[in-house]
Every structure is written in C-alpha cells, then in structure tokens.
C-alpha cells in the first residue's frame, strides 16, 4: 500500500448501514424442511462494515432492455391469467429513495407452475409466459412491472402444503450490505397462516410488509388491477473514522 493510501485510510469517512436485527427470518426454521440441512449450525460472526461492505455493484440500465418490465408480451401471444400491474418504491429505512437500482423478479404462471425443469406440478405451462422480469428504479426509487397474477401451488414441505401466491424479488441497493432477496405476497391470502416460509419471519408487523396492497390509483380501468408494494432496504448514516484523533 502506498503512503497516500495510508493517509487516505486515516481519513476514510464511510457510511454505516443500520442493523436488520430481528427483521429477517432465522436461518434455522424447523418448520421449513429445506432449512434443516442447509442452515448453518454455528452462530454468525459479527463483521464490522468496511470498504467492501459499504460499496456494491451499481447495476442499472446496462442490464435491462426495453420490455423487460413487461412479462406479458414478447413471447408471441398473451399469457393466460389475470393481468396485473405491480409497482412501488425502493427506499432505505431512513426514508430515502434508492434510485437507479436493478430489480429482478421471477414467478409462477397463473396456474401455479414455474417454467423450470425442476417444477413437476401437474398444472399447465403457458408458452407465452416465462415469468422473469427486470427493471431499474427511476430517480425517485420507483419501479413498475406488468405481469400475470401467479397461482398458488403445492410443495412437498409437509402433507398438503401449498404456497400462497407470490412474486420473487431480488434487489441490490447501493451497497453489499443492502442486498435483499425476498417475496411479495397478495392481500388477504387464506394460505398465510399455513405457510412456514411466510411465518418464518418472527415479527408479524415485518411479515405484513411483504404483502402488497390493491391500489385503485394504480389500477388501469378496463385493463389491469394494480398492486402497490414498497421495499425498504437498510438505511445509512455517515460516520467519520479519524485515526488522528485517537
């Protein structure tokens, strides 16, 4: 390392991202069978946030092409099912919008079947629906997808297990620390009380933040229902580290 690097190191003023303690599901959630052999058994080791953690890939427009946010066109014909608009804002927990950040989604079709070789649920595939979409938030952190409402589907976690309808979301934010993969649900799904993945989130208020809201402002008359869902990533505060003051 050069001397100028050393000097710079003494003056590094890095943001710090807030803790998400108590928000995310515990990795070891016995009700979710797949976690039994995959959840680490050792406690996580605390790691201070340094340069690698407070930076991250700023992936944006270069990863998205026109039409990626519309899952209903581009496959020859229109997919079957209930056309919906899913839109909202990406914010941090201090209320600031997260602009220019990549969002990737994937989902089952209207019958509850994924266009994936591993999915053997005997429900029809839809040749006009792959179920993958991408977009980049605008300068106010807003995003918008046009898609089909996914169906509920059975899985083999326990006898007669069914997942509530959901759309998978992947977000980067502005830092490694903000990375989030989650699922968006639909209002008043009767499967909520029965789903060990949804209920793995310990705090009911946090759980409720994964449920979108029907929004008649977003709804387009004679065309598509609108569901609004805001996503909140860990917030940041500037913190100055000064070795000279020690």
């Amino acid at each position, binding site marked *: *390392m050069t001397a100028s*690097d*050393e000097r710079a190191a003494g*003056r*590094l003023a890095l943001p710090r991202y*807030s*803790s998400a*303690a108590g*928000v*995310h*599901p*515990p990795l070891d959630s016995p009700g*979710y069978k*797949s976690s*039994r*052999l*995959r*959840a*680490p*058994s*050792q406690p*996580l*080791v*605390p*790691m201070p946030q*340094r*340069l*690698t*953690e*407070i*930076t*991250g*890939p700023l*992936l944006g427009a270069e*990863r998205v092409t026109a039409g990626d946010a519309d899952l209903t066109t581009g496959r020859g014909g229109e997919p079957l099912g209930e056309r919906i608009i899913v839109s909202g804002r990406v914010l941090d*927990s201090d209320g600031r919008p997260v602009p220019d950040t990549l969002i*990737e*989604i*994937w989902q089952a079709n209207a019958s509850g079947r994924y*266009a*994936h070789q*591993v999915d053997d649920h005997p429900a029809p595939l839809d040749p006009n629906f792959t*179920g993958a979409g991408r977009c980049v938030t605008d300068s106010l952190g807003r995003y918008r997808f046009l898609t089909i409402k996914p169906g509920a589907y059975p899985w083999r976690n326990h006898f007669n297990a069914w997942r509530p309808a959901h759309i*998978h979301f*992947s977000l980067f934010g*502005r*830092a*490694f620390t903000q*990375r*989030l*993969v*989650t*699922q968006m649900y639909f209002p008043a799904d009767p499967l909520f009380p029965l789903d060990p*993945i949804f209920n793995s989130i310990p705090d009911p208020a946090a*759980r409720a*933040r994964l449920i979108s809201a029907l929004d008649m402002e977003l709804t387009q008359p004679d065309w598509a229902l609108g569901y609004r869902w805001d996503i909140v*990533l*860990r*917030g940041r505060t500037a913190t100055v*580290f000064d070795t000279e003051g020690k």
Partner: protein
Amino acid sequence: MSEGITPSQTVGPFLGIGLPWPDGPFVVPPGTPDSIVIEGRVLDGDGQPVPDALVETWQADPDGRFDHPDDPRGRAAAHGGFRGFGRSATDPSGNYQIVTLRPGALPCPGGGTEAPHLDVSVFARGLLDRVVTRIYFADEAEANAADPVLASVADPARRATLIAARAGDGGGTAGDGACGRFRFDIRLQGELETVFFDA
C-alpha cells in the same frame, strides 16, 4: 435502526428463471490477462452438493479500489471490463465458478489493512436469508495474518474455511484463459462448516 426494513425470504428452487446471467461468472471478460478462476462446491450438512444455489461475489480491483462513490479514494486505474461483481448458479454437482482479477489489499477506516478478499453471498432453497462469507487467498499468508476479520475467528480450523487454496498448476483451461485457479468450497452446515458473517 431496523424499523420498516423489508424482511428476506428464500430464493426457492426456481431462482434459475430469474437470476443467472450468461456473463454472470465473468467479473472480467474471458481471456483477460492476469485473470484467475475461483471455483468450488456448495455442500449441505450431509456433504451433499447443493444444485440450486447462487453464489455472488463483490471485491476491490487489483489496486484495492472500488468503482463506487462511497470509496472516498476514487479509482487508481481502469481495469478493462472489471465489474467487481460475480454471480454463478451452481450446477447439478453443486459447482460454481467465478473468473476475476485478484483484489488488492484495503485500508481499514481505523487504521490497519485488510488482506485481499472477496465478499460472498450464498442464496439457496432452504436459506431464508442469504449467508455471507469471505474468500481469502492461501498465498497471502503475511497479509492474512494481519487481517482483522480473519483475526476475529479464533479457531484456526474455522478460520481455514475462509482461505481459498491454489488448485492445479495455474495453467488455465481452454476458454477461460486464466493464469491461476483457486478452490473454495462452501459448507453450509456440519463438520468444517464455513464461517458466515453478520455485517
């Protein structure tokens, strides 16, 4: 402050629909001079491969800089096509692979130096939140000995789970043009379980 933060959920078994990119494993374009390959397997608590995982990496460039506004030092030099970010889905045998440049060492905010490393996120069915680990390099023994994160793991056997070993003769293979290969297996659970961090 955790108020209002959106909770995590598992990527599930069908992440292959939405997340892999054709160029995901290539932090630098194929054939980039001085590129290295980091490869390994993701294994579960029975030692069985995890065929539906996604491994992501984030790292400094060879000068120890980040192309990011919150790196107050800025970049020292361009490194053609270096993205800093890698993403590899595992194959049916649990293998992942990243083609990249070796990262430089980093200054710590409070003084001291972090040894060259990559931050790693692992996503999979069965993981309700990502798990985070780090890849260090076995041939950086001196820098590793002074690294504060490695030092925070007291047990030498556990610490060793964070070190990628050199694999093969460094001759590279057709297609990747790499000048060095490193092996880093990720054991999600059980004996020799990889150290995972809470940042």
